[in-house]
């Protein structure tokens, strides 16, 4: 019998994985993907809740999240490309001109 908890735990795990990705990957592109992963986890939570509460609010919110996610990806990749042109790398550990 699947309960709300199942979904919530799943999404929490997904969220955690996303965070882990941001923490651990050096490749800028992958980091962006991990962010997507986090957002997806949130989406899952929303949908699960909307199902549980029987309200559409959550689903609508998910749509907007997707919009935002797409936008962010677009801009993010834009920056990534530009950076790659300038520095020839997508290793975010080498992107530290500014510190302290």
């Amino acid at each position: 019998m699947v309960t709300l908890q199942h979904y919530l735990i799943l999404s929490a795990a997904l969220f955690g994985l996303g965070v882990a990705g941001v923490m651990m990957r050096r490749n800028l592109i992958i980091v962006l993907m991990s962010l997507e992963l986090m957002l997806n986890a949130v989406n899952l939570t929303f949908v699960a809740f909307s199902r549980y509460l029987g309200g559409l609010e959550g689903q609508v919110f998910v749509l907007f999240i997707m919009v935002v996610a797409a936008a962010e990806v677009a801009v993010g990749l834009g920056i990534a490309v530009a950076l790659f042109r300038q520095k020839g790398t997508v290793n975010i550990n080498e992107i530290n001109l500014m510190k302290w």
Partner: protein
Amino acid sequence: MVQIKLPEIILTGICPALLLCGAGIIALMVGLFLRKGTIGVSAVISLVGVALGFLANMPLRTMKQIAFNGMLTVDAYSWFFNMLILIAAGLTILISTRYLFDQGLESYEYFVLLLFCSAGMMFMVAGNHLLTIFIGLETLSISVYVLTGIMPASAKARESALKYLILGAFSSAVFLYGAALLYGSGASLSLDGLAKYFKGGQVSLMASAGMVMLIVGFGFKVAAVPFHMWTPDVYEGAPAPITGFMSVGVKAAAFAAFARVLFEASGELPAIWTNILWCLAALTMILGNLAALVQENIKRMLAYSSIAHAGYLLIGMVAGTPEGTSSMLYYLLAYTFTNLGAFGIVALVGRQGEANVMLDDYRGLSRTHPMLALTMSLFLFSLAGIPPLAGFVAKFAIFKSALTQGYIWLVIIGVLTSAASVFYYFRVVMKMYMEAPEEELAAVEFSPGMVLALAVAAVVIIYIGVFPTTYLGLAAESVKPLF
């Protein structure tokens, strides 16, 4: 069949934002079809837009209305912040024009994004529903990401944009997760719903967790420690005027939404949240001020200082009273003029390609440009909270409100750290007045816009510092809707 019930649409309520968007789109079009000198034109258009927005904002002060099916509230509070945002935008535009020429950045999009960003802020501050707030937030964020990285030549700009974007996305993910938890724990996503839920007692752990995550999300935007890490880098990498705009506009909008969510949701804050805010405030003041002591790059220094100021503003939140919030508003007002002025001068002194943003580049400025140095000192003194400038009255108000609630230790931390802050603010004055430059730098070119902006800022911080009553009054009545 599903019957469509249209929402009650109150265009006057969102008129300022609409005007900004409109101006933005016009600027975009003109920019697309014009070949040369687009900057001047689009700057003028945006200024007109801002001016109109200002006019359109006037009547909002007296309104108290929930529009668009509870997506938006139009009240004195949003009126105040609209005003603030419009001022910030206006000043930024004035500062930017000449700057863009100097940097050889012939891009009208700059202004377009600036306007969209401001519009986003307006929706954010007026938002009565987490969705509106979130969309507004993202609109401003994305525009700011882009503006941050808009300098094609500079690797720093790109880098800062990237950092900002990644961390921004990260924090909005947290924010959203919080929203989700709130939504799930029976509370709705609209602030009224939340208020109902939280005032109804019987608050579930999940709901509080959600709320805390919202706090984290906002904390990131206002650059509260430990969510501040992006600030120094982004401020350093971004074009000076944008940095200024971020440090006041984004901060103001974020604080506005922050306060609205917190206070509308819960009559007066539960101890737990207050404690969290208390710690955030303390950490922010301490770290911001201390780290600023050792900075050699003025943009970075001002970045840390803006972190510190976020800390002071948080004191107002901790107080959690109308007084506290209103003094926060006044603080933001003062801070807007002061900081934009300061960054204007940073942009000016930075000269070609922002080559001169180190503190040592300010050596002997008083000899080459006495008035400029004087104005800069004025801004710095106001930031340091030296009476009778606006900055002092603002700090005074904040501390007063906190003490009224008995947060004496927080206030003591506040005063001690601001004593430390005197060191780095005065350090700049020292460089300008008391040291001689090694090599002569090229003269600074003024532009009428810049001069106007600086003059206005300087005059205002003196004026509202010496005669703060009216403005304190405005702030006080602007926060009424929240409580």
